């Protein structure tokens, strides 16, 4: 049951992200490029193998899911067009969908901000929480 | 043989010896599948394809005809595909003019190195022909009045 469940999720992630993890040549440029690398428990280059190996359950439980800034630097620089950022984005969407909605609404976000918050974070926050 | 009554189109592919036939060989040796409905006729160059051949194929019941040659500029004979391009453009336009569906004829440039393109092209062409169904209209031209 859980196997097929996992398999399903991996397929869903591939579908949502529109990426093919098999294209990865394991160069690690995504992890080299990631500004949130040190915050993550599962590193960007590992996202890909988790999906390729149908090990999505661990991925969706990871902290990385919520640490990724969705800056998409990895998507931009990936030489193989594998797009790890899109994969984590898709995994996040999977969780949000399963929970049945966002647990943060767009209206709440302004109160959580201070002047120092970079604009990129703002954009990614919307992207992340407002589905 | 297959039991279901799925429509199996008859498709004739004219391939030039130097690029597209070799591209089809590469598709084969790379095991890139495409439907068995496609049958290839080897010609030296796309410019060898006479409009008569195409009309004859339709007359005899083909559902689609595709002509493959070297990319413009890369013709083994320098200029053959340029003439083929003009001839086929005008012929296809005429077929469209008399009411034959546009999708039944196609020209595609496939190099000897493009096994993937060959296979993709054939898969796509067969799917399009299947979408168009049996060649009723040219069948009508065969006077099933």
């Amino acid at each position, binding site marked *: 049951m859980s196997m097929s469940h996992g398999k399903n999720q991996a397929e869903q992630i591939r579908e949502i992200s529109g990426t093919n993890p098999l294209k990865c*040549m*394991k*160069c*690690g*440029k*995504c*992890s*080299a*490029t990631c500004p949130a690398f040190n915050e993550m428990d599962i590193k960007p*280059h590992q996202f890909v193998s988790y999906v390729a190996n149908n090990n999505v359950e661990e991925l969706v439980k990871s902290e990385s899911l919520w640490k990724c800034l969705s800056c998409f630097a990895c998507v931009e620089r*990936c*030489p*193989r*067009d594998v797009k790890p950022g899109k994969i984590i984005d898709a995994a996040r969407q999977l969780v949000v969908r399963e929970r049945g909605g966002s647990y943060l609404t767009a209206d709440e976000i302004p109160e959580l901000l201070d002047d120092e918050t970079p604009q990129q974070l703002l954009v990614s926050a919307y992207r992340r929480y407002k589905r | *043989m*297959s039991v279901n009554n799925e429509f199996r189109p*008859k498709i*004739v592919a004219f391939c030039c*010896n*130097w*690029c597209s036939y070799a591209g*089809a*060989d590469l*598709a*084969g*040796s790379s*095991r*890139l*599948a*495409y439907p*068995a409905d496609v*049958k*290839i*006729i*080897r*010609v*030296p*160059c796309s*410019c*060898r394809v*006479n*409009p*008569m*051949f195409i009309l*004859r194929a339709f007359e*005899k*019941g*083909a559902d689609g005809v595709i002509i493959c040659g*070297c990319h413009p*500029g*890369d013709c*083994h*004979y*320098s*200029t053959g595909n340029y*003439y083929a391009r003009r*001839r086929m453009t005008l012929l296809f336009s005429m077929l469209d003019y008399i009411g034959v569906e546009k999708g039944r004829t196609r020209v595609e440039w496939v*190099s*000897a*190195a493009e096994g993937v393109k060959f296979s993709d092209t054939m898969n796509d062409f067969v799917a399009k022909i299947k979408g168009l169904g049996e060649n009723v209209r040219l069948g009508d031209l065969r006077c099933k009045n």
Partner: protein
Amino acid sequence: MQRIGVFVCHCGSNIAATVDVKKVVEVIASEPGVVHAEDYQYMCSEAGQEKIAIAVREKKLTGIVVCSCSPRMHEATFRKAAERAGINPYMVEIANIREHCSWIHKDINEATEKAVILARAAVAKVNLNTPLTPGESRVTKRALVIGGGIAGIQTALDIADAGYKVDIVEKTPSIGGRMSQLDKTFPTLDCSACILTPKMVEAAAHENITIYTYSEVEKVSGFVGDFTVDIRKKARFIDADKCTGCGACQEKCPSKKTPSEFNRGLGTRTAIYTPFAQAIPNVPVIDTEACIKFKTGKCGLCQKICAAGAVDYTQKDEIITEKYGAIVVATGFDTINLDKYDEYAYNQSPDVITSLELERVMNAAGPTHGHLERLSDGKAPKEIVFIQCVGSRCSDDRGKPYCSKICCMYTAKHAMLIRDKYPDVNVTVFYIDVRTPGKNFDEFYRRAVEQYGVNYVKGQVGKVIPQPNGKLLVQGSDLLDNKQILKEADMVVLATAIEPNKDVRKIATMLTASIDTNNFLTEAHAKLRPVESPTAGIFLSGVVQGPKDIPETVSQAGAAAVKVVGLLAKDKLTTNPCTAKADELLCNGCSSCANVCPYGAISYEDTLVNDHGIRETRRIAIVNSALCQGCGACTVACPSGAMDLQGFSNRQILSEVDAICR
């Protein structure tokens, strides 16, 4: 009516696993004209060919159909077999039931059905085949080599040593190519110039070799054995016969600010220049875009100072027309443009350089006289980072999808040389894979690690950020440690992908040689004919065919030379008998065919014809079968159907159409 034998090959299990060969034999046996059908494990084997001979004898066959692999593979084999058995070789047709059938279909019923149809089409064609006899054409015993790098030089030397005349056409002012820009060569670390220069000198001195430098191929016509080529010899503005190569002109030239192509733009050169000291010929050229005399009319210093009186500002481009029997393409490579790779800061910092630029920096004759120094401030670097696969193995449009093949080895070489000469410099190499297939290659790489202490990190660099203190902050990943690394480097070296020379597409078009999407020329067969183009008489040498290092290039150059020599050794070539032919009773003499003939093979003659009793003189098309290459353009241009192509006649093709659509 023909008596046709059909031979169905199993090709081991290559065909037999997906095509029911017995069934094909059974069905085809009842086709009109078929008097014999059998199957065999390997038709191409000696035993298989013997089966054909036996059937020809016993069944008095007049035509043969072999259902097997592609005709591009074994058509020649079976034609020869037929000839030995006493049948005209052009009475053989191949039904391609391997590449076009068994290998691409999974369902045995479908594949068998298709194999039968392909066999039927071939039988229908053979029914209309006629015996054909090849003609003969002459061979011009001279070869042309396009490109004067190590590939071209080696090919030319080998051809010349075999006793044939050979011309080298080189675009730049000197032969030598990329190899002349290299400092040391892997895996033995000998000095590039030390092994290349003698070959350059040998080529220049060889009585059978003519070198056209600063020249380009402008036009090619003809065909194997008989090419005619126009070579544009660009004006050097120096009389090569008078010039002594003293170099005084270059010393005195006041225009000194042009970036040196030879030094990859890292240094400058004068307007009148030889690209490097060992240049061959040692005759300078004047760059008219930089020359003050050409720009303003004033100056003329070089002319004044030249004791030999060799400087001639009025020199014009010259077109040389020469005939060749064979042409070798050895146009080599360049590194890709890095404009799309912002993250490596190549365009932002002079201390981020390509590996080829590092070659110049390390070279004693280079811009830093061989001292390893930062190009920004001339300081000695302490920390150097090498980044592998920059633009190689990319599936996006920024780079190239292929592996450039040479980078792993030259990076190991660079790392080793630096550590050897400057033991206090730390060298870090970010790699994806280290690829070292080649004799003594892995050993070489291991030496870099074990003996020279080069730090190889499995991971990639995400970005290089130039710092205010002049350093370069390198952010990379270490996948084995699962860490992100931040390193302050003094220099970053990019193992930049290589690509075929930009001009090669133009040349391929002139030669009608097949070229792939990456601009590498296609070989006639990936495994069995790697140095020949599918276009007869065109041969490939060096990186023009695919990435390769020096030892491989030299081997291939030799192989290409042998193929050329094999061709030039013949006095006559048999020509393809599948040529066009006009039916004089149908010909209108309208010139449509001649208009589309790419070889000028069609002329018109007033011929007396007897058209069913009407005797009259008519303008009739005559095809010169030595010139005709058999494309068939004329056959379609001909409105009356008078022009037909032997071996691919209208009726033959129509019969195939009919058989397929039956």
